[in-house]
């Protein structure tokens, strides 16, 4: 792990992710105000000593709302990715180890699903499931599954013919043991790298759904929803949309940078050329 911290990308990513982690874990405890409390006297103000990041159309403190919304925004990204990666890995491992017609059928179906742009796919599923945080998370997870399954499959295929796997087969180990103990741990690298980068996509898609009114619902402080609610007032106080918007970008940036550094450290060919 420390090797990651040697590249500037890795350091920047780690710093951003630590900030995000602090906001998620301690945010609602250190928030200076109640995120839902109205302060009619100070509506739509810019940054000041009393309100570091300004206030929204009801005079609610933007910093407090930002900190309060961190768990739902980031949690969404992590949850959706975890579900999608889990389901995708299971399908990919099944396709990769089974081979033959099972593999062919699974791959053709995945190709079909991958032909639908990801956001469109997510929108269709959210419409089926109905809006809301949980439904949106499931939709993003489902939209991630085909892509992850493909990566898991190709990762498994590259491991399947290695000597240590063939040795396990020759030893007469049961199939379950070979998959779980020999193939999966060694196929995990590319899957983890892809998953880290996908968290940033998941955060962005989750915020987009919140923005479109299909994800988090008011009075949630989810960041995408904050941008949507602030849009009406953005010309009077740009901070209302800039604060949550930049927060989403920084969180996504953290996962992007860290994922890239992770890939470089796992792939010696890449790390050599820096």
């Amino acid at each position, binding site marked *: 792990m420390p090797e990651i911290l040697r590249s500037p990308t890795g350091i920047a990513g780690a710093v951003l992710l630590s900030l995000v982690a602090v906001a998620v874990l301690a945010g609602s405890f250190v928030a200076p105000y109640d995120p839902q409390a109205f302060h009619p006297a100070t509506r739509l103000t810019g940054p000041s000593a009393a309100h570091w990041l300004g206030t929204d159309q009801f005079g609610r403190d933007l910093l407090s709302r930002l900190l309060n919304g961190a768990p739902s925004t980031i949690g969404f990204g992590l949850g959706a990715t975890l579900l999608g990666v889990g389901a995708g890995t299971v399908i990919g491992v099944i396709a990769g180890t089974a081979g033959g017609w099972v593999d062919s059928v699974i791959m*053709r*179906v995945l*190709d*079909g*699903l991958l*032909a*639908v*742009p*990801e*956001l*469109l796919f997510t*929108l*269709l*599923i959210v*419409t*089926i499931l*109905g809006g809301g945080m949980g439904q949106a998370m499931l939709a993003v997870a489902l939209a991630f599954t085909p892509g992850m399954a493909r990566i898991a499959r190709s990762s498994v295929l590259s491991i399947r013919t290695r000597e240590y796997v063939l040795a396990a087969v020759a030893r007469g180990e049961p199939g379950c043991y070979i998959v779980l103990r020999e193939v999966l741990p060694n196929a995990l690298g590319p899957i983890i790298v892809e998953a880290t980068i996908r968290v*940033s996509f998941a955060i*962005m*898609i989750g*915020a*987009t759904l919140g*923005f*479109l009114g299909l994800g988090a619902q008011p009075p949630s402080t989810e960041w*995408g929803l904050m*941008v949507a609610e602030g*849009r009406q007032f*953005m*010309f009077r106080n*740009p901070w209302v*949309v*800039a604060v949550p*918007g*930049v927060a*989403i*970008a*920084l969180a*996504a*940036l953290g996962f*992007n*940078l860290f994922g890239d550094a992770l890939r470089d450290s796992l792939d010696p060919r890449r790390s050599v*050329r820096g």
Partner: protein
Amino acid sequence: MTFGYLLRRLAAVLLVLFIVTFAVFAITMILPGNAAIMILGEYGTPESVAALERQLGLDRPWYVQYADWVGGVLRGDLGQSLRLSLPVSEVVGQAFWNSAVLAVTALVAVTVIAIPLGVVAAIRRGTAADLVIGLFAYIGASMPEFVTATLLLVFLAGPATGLLPAGGFVAPGESFAGFVSHVLLPAGTLGLILTAHISRQVRSEMSDVLASDYIRAARLKGLRERRVIRRHALPNSLAPAVAVISLDIGYLLGGIIVVEEIFAWPGLGRLLIYALENRDLPVIQAVTLLLATVYALSNLIADIVIALLDPRVRYA
């Protein structure tokens, strides 16, 4: 390029599209609340809903509806919009051209900007130029379209600056200046994330190529640096760039949904959101199938271009 390679790729595309029709149809069939309920709203009695369902053909078994729909698609008949009382092909057709104008403008701008950026970053690796381009690429790739769009609106379309219109559409044939001023913000929003992505990919490929033995050989041969880059390095880094651009068309097609909604651009994305809100199944099916077809065809074209650029692919 062998004929067999083309044929195999074409067959794969057709198979994928067949699976897509099935998936799209399955998804729209399990949408809760059908169009009859949506049209009649709160005044619908169970009898009137049943009557309207019969009239719209929604009471038939799913496979009959599917066969009917696919048959229609093959004949170029996409059905009747349930909410707009217009043929779907008419509604979707107009929106398609509006979207195409936006997407192509964005894509051309991106290609023209991103490839040179990536090349410059690779040639000047480790310099300030590389750092700035790299930073821009990371930031661009981390901004969802709605955030970029909102920030662009605040800074360029607000009453304070008022440089550009906040939304709407002017056909290029109608007034070219009007079109340009309206297309700048949506195309810029779509372009940012793609420019980031593509320039990063080109930089990475170009760096690999520049470190390779044949570039060393070309330099040792005494060729001028400009020729080394234009004739030897660039063509070999372009095939992966084309692959990324074709994948990014998927992002682009998703992105137009959000961007059109924000900038009130009367294209497929805006139509789709309207149709989803109103359970206008024939429109949802047509838009989804159309976007998937465009994506699949652009991937096919990209594969052909890559095969033309890189002989190794053709014979694989």
